[in-house]
């Protein structure tokens, strides 16, 4: 029954949502459209993180290193090469983050569990330190501003600095990347990740090399975070060290966990929730991170399924009468 409902949601709900979002620029103000774009970018970031945490059970405190590398690579490429096309920059940034993910993954995945969590944090700090010190490349504390290149469609040039345009581009491309992540979870590779989380010993027994599976997943999530980072840079036309900081890691943790790490849609929900609640709270008080932190702890303690878990529980409660035999 539940599976049925979810299939229904995926088949009709997702395209419907996409159509709805296509119409948003006609309704929303420029400011809210920016928030929406940001939330979509964070969605990909959080979805990629959830593939690690929710699907593979790997707790990482270093996801911002990929996000930051993607963002900085984008800014640096645009700064040093003239006439690089928009999509070329994004593709290169993603490719580069893939390589970084592979290299870091080889080192980090030598350990598991708590030591892994600790080392991801240490590596994140290393990336931040490199960003701070390598002033000539990253601009250090000043950050880098960039001019997002226009997209040449052959018959027209699309200006990517305009709010509406970047919204549509983000919706389309980042939306595609999120859909690809969803597709990934349905492939044999994605399913073997779940199997690895549930019973790694058995999986090895069946002849799988779990170390390779883990490395591929880690690299893939890194690449997706890098893609999100690249869009983040293009969207803001600016990158600062914030993109690679521990705060950015904390952000993805909060978004993923508040939304719910147990299922695919949770982090998307969490990103939108986080972006909008932050906007709302920061008007009221400077101490909004404190409230966000309390919310996070509350979720960890009382609702480990996050918001999406709460919604599902509620939906189950309402439909209980119809599927008693379950």
């Amino acid at each position, binding site marked *: 029954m539940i599976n049925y409902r979810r299939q229904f949601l995926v088949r009709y709900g997702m395209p419907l949502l996409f159509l709805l979002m296509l119409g948003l620029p006609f309704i929303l103000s420029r400011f809210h459209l920016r928030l929406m774009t940001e939330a979509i970018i964070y969605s990909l970031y959080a979805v990629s993180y959830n593939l690690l*945490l929710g699907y593979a059970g790997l707790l990482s405190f270093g996801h911002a290193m990929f996000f930051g590398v993607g963002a900085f690579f984008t800014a640096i490429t645009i700064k040093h090469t003239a006439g690089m096309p928009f999509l070329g920059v994004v593709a290169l940034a993603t490719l580069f983050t893939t390589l970084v993910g592979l290299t870091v993954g080889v080192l980090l995945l030598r350990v*598991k*569990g708590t030591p892994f969590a600790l080392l991801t*944090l240490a590596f994140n700090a290393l990336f931040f330190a490199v960003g701070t*010190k390598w002033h000539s490349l990253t601009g250090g504390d000043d950050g880098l501003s960039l001019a997002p290149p226009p997209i040449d469609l052959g018959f027209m040039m699309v200006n990517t600095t305009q709010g509406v345009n970047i919204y549509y581009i983000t919706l389309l491309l980042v939306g595609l990347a999120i859909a690809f992540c969803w597709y990934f979870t349905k492939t044999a590779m994605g399913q073997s990740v779940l199997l690895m989380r549930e019973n790694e010993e058995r999986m090895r027994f069946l002849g799988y090399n779990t170390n390779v599976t883990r490395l591929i997943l880690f690299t893939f999530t890194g690449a997706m975070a890098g893609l999100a980072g690249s869009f983040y840079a293009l969207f803001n036309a600016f990158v600062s060290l914030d993109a690679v900081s521990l705060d950015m890691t904390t952000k993805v943790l909060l978004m993923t966990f508040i939304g719910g790490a147990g299922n695919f849609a949770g982090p998307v929900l969490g990103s939108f929730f986080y972006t909008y609640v932050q906007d709302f709270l920061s008007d009221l008080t400077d*101490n909004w991170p404190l409230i966000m932190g309390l919310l*996070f702890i509350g979720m960890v*303690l009382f609702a480990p399924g996050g918001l999406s878990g709460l919604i599902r529980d509620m939906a189950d409660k309402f439909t209980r009468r119809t599927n008693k035999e379950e």
Partner: protein
Amino acid sequence: MIEVAVFFLHGLAYAGLLFLVSSGLTLVFGMMNVLNFAHAAFYMLGAYFAYSMLQMTGSFWLCLAISPIMLLLLGAVVERLLLRKVHVLGHVHELLLTFGLAYIIQEAVKWIWGTNPQAMTVTGFLADTIKVFGITYPVYRLFVFGVSVILGLFMALVLFKTRIGIIVRAAVDDSSMVSALGINVPFVFMGVFAVGAALSGLAGVTAGPLLSVFPGMAGAILVDAFVVIVVGGMGSLGGAVLASFIIGELQSFGVLLFPKFSLALIYMLMALVLILKPEGLFGEKQ
């Protein structure tokens, strides 16, 4: 030559501080299998408590005594009310909880004490200088090292020579057997966590006059302390001693020899240990 001696002493002082921080971290990890991400936040809280107390009373020795006790109580409360609750949900949730706690403490500190660095000044002989190896050197830095040595010896004595130590070590190996012998195991774990928090408080008070008190101090020490316990071997007290010494001196001489890359040195050491001996110098194989 004199310069080398000075940097060696600087390294010792920092090594002492690192050991003060990482000893509690490694104790809690070794005994409870929980990596406390909030440990550095506790350390910062200890420093801020001491700062406020020093403002009120003017006695550093009082701070040194009271601040760890306050952290002991806080640690006990956190373990009893929060950590124990998520224990059944598994490791990931325990880590997430302590991580969230660190975040909240960080924000609360900014809210209560503001973001400006505050100086903690000690008086009396601690503020003096002393002649060692023919150089004049501040007493306080040596005091930090002294505190860490005394603490290290005390911890080793309690853990390996007393009944309490035997119970704690046994509770890690086989908690159901220990509980069958009539020992309140959850209480033992609460005690261990509280002591870990108290140690971070002690480290915080000691660090205050050395580094001054600021909201970034938790983040500044956290990674170094993590590197110490990775290099030394997670959960190993002896490893923490050796790794603190290596990293303290590495930091100190790194600044002298390669000022540009001093920050990268400890990460290189960590990467090296990971490649050659992933379980750390004194760690047990997983």
